[in-house]
């Protein structure tokens, strides 16, 4: 079986977000780019599955939609342990556009399991994975918090409102992955970093696809009101404020 992990790059979570061009785009100066946390966990789990020969995973590939400047993101994934990479040479216009690009590559390269993070920490859309599966007309399972291979058959755990389900779908399929899929993201070891240069990265040109959405302007969140402090010796006062002032209890 061949696994594809779709990765996007996002500003490091501690980055202070600033805007440029009249708040129409984000100021990329000084931003530390990292692999989207959910994608990083997907990659970790894919590599864990490959580690056990009994699972029969032949290769783990990463795919990313981005211009040449985003190549370090792919190299980082290769250093962590992915076998090869695919870059679709384009800026990402919106989720619909990105999913169209990834779907096209999957059609050409054939993968059995496609893993996508449930959202990216920049646009928080939760869309790309599901869109890819519909473009390809293959099954998708969302909110996946566990995946294993049993007798050659992938078994998934998906979160539902108020519980979990153990499900299976025939390959090829897209699993949209969330917290729980792997414990800690795997980090690149020196050997992995050394090998990165020898691993292939295929570059594809984008196919025509029309974005359906457009961000016109960004805003900073409204500042919160100052905190009202209550004496630790008299916490009952808090309960009174919550009841009479905030009216939430």
């Amino acid at each position, binding site marked *: 079986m061949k696994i594809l992990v779709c990765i996007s790059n996002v500003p490091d*979570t501690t980055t202070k*977000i600033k805007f440029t061009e009249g708040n129409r785009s*984000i100021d990329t100066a000084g931003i530390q780019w990292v692999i989207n*946390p*959910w994608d990083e966990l997907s990659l970790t789990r894919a590599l864990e599955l490959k580690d056990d020969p009994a699972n029969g995973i032949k290769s783990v590939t990463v795919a990313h939609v981005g211009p040449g400047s985003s190549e370090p993101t792919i190299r980082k994934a290769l250093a962590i342990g992915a076998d090869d990479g695919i870059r679709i040479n384009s800026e990402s216009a919106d*989720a*619909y556009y990105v999913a169209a690009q990834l779907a096209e590559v999957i059609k050409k390269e054939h993968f059995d399991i496609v893993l996508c993070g*449930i959202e990216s*920490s*920049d646009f*928080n*859309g*939760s*869309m790309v994975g*599901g*869109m890819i*599966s*519909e*473009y390809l007309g293959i*099954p*998708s399972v*969302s*909110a996946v*918090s566990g995946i294993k291979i049993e007798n050659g058959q992938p078994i998934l755990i998906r*979160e*539902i*409102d*108020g*519980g979990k389900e*153990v*499900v*299976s779908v025939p390959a090829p399929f897209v699993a*949209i992955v969330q*917290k*729980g899929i792997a*414990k800690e993201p795997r980090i690149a070891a020196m050997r992995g970093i050394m090998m990165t240069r020898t691993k292939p990265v295929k570059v594809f040109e984008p196919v025509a696809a029309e974005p*359906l*959405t*457009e*961000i*016109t*302007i*960004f*805003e*900073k*969140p409204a500042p*919160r*009101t100052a*905190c009202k*402090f*209550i*004496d*630790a010796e008299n*916490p*009952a006062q*808090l*309960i009174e404020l919550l009841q009479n002032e*905030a009216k*939430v*209890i």
Partner: protein
Amino acid sequence: MSVLVYTENWEGKFKKLTFELVSYASEIAKMVNSSVTAVSIGKVDETELRKLGNYGAAKIISIENNHLSTLDNQAYAIVLGEIAQKETASVIVLSNNNTGKAVAPRLSVRLKAGIGSGVSKLPLSIIPFTLYKRTYSGNAFAHVVIKSEIKILTLAQNSFSLIETGSSATIVKMDIPVDSYLIKTKVNDVHKQTGRILLTDADVVVSGGRGMKSPDNWAPLVELASVLGGATACSRPVSDEGWRPHEEHTGQTGKIIAPNLYIAVGISGATQHLAGISSSRYIVAINTDKDAPIFEAAQYGIVGDAMKVLPKLVTAVKELKK
């Protein structure tokens, strides 16, 4: 033309989030001069279905098909897509919960309809169709224009108030044939959480961080949640340490919640944690460190030892409820 809303049920019953969705859809219907059609999939009795009318649904399409008792994302997208076309839907509303996130993107490609996901407000304008959306995990908000003819919106839970209209709806039973071979998802096992309020449904959430010092110290926190009729949550280090189950982890990579009241106990308030709770209406912080960043996000704060403060809060709430 209609505004279509997918009304999910849980063992035949709707919950608050369903009514939030219908209220939201009906406000949008007013903006676009249209009416609301609710779609229910699964066995829901007529009394329950009628409740949707009270929040502004004009028509309710009820589909009871045994093949759809399992959530198969592909099949659900086909069924909802077909109804959207029959009803000439211009806007489709789903929840931004697990089901909505699973189905909406597939529906988007099927209908070539742009998505505004996780919205918590009505559109800023109809022409162009502009949404207000949380981005960068709550560190920024964006105006997003959907350019396609059909628009899909997924509504964040607990973000829109219920609006009762007192009106009633027409119920239409519809049979959409779904071939069994189409259902690819096989459920082998189900584990349900019972007897407790779900974190994502809770109006009040009491959450503990590493400042709680030990998993043995959780009893007063759990008791406070219980007397307030709320749910318990925790920060990432706490779930990573295995002090609490990972389902309780709220934060950027955990659950994103928006209760009316979030009480953070012994949580310093790292950016990643705030990303999961910043949409709460009121945040209360209890922390020994007066400089902890959580106090910048909170409206009410107590600088003090949780182990001393929590039991007193429990007593005060019990007094109040007498």
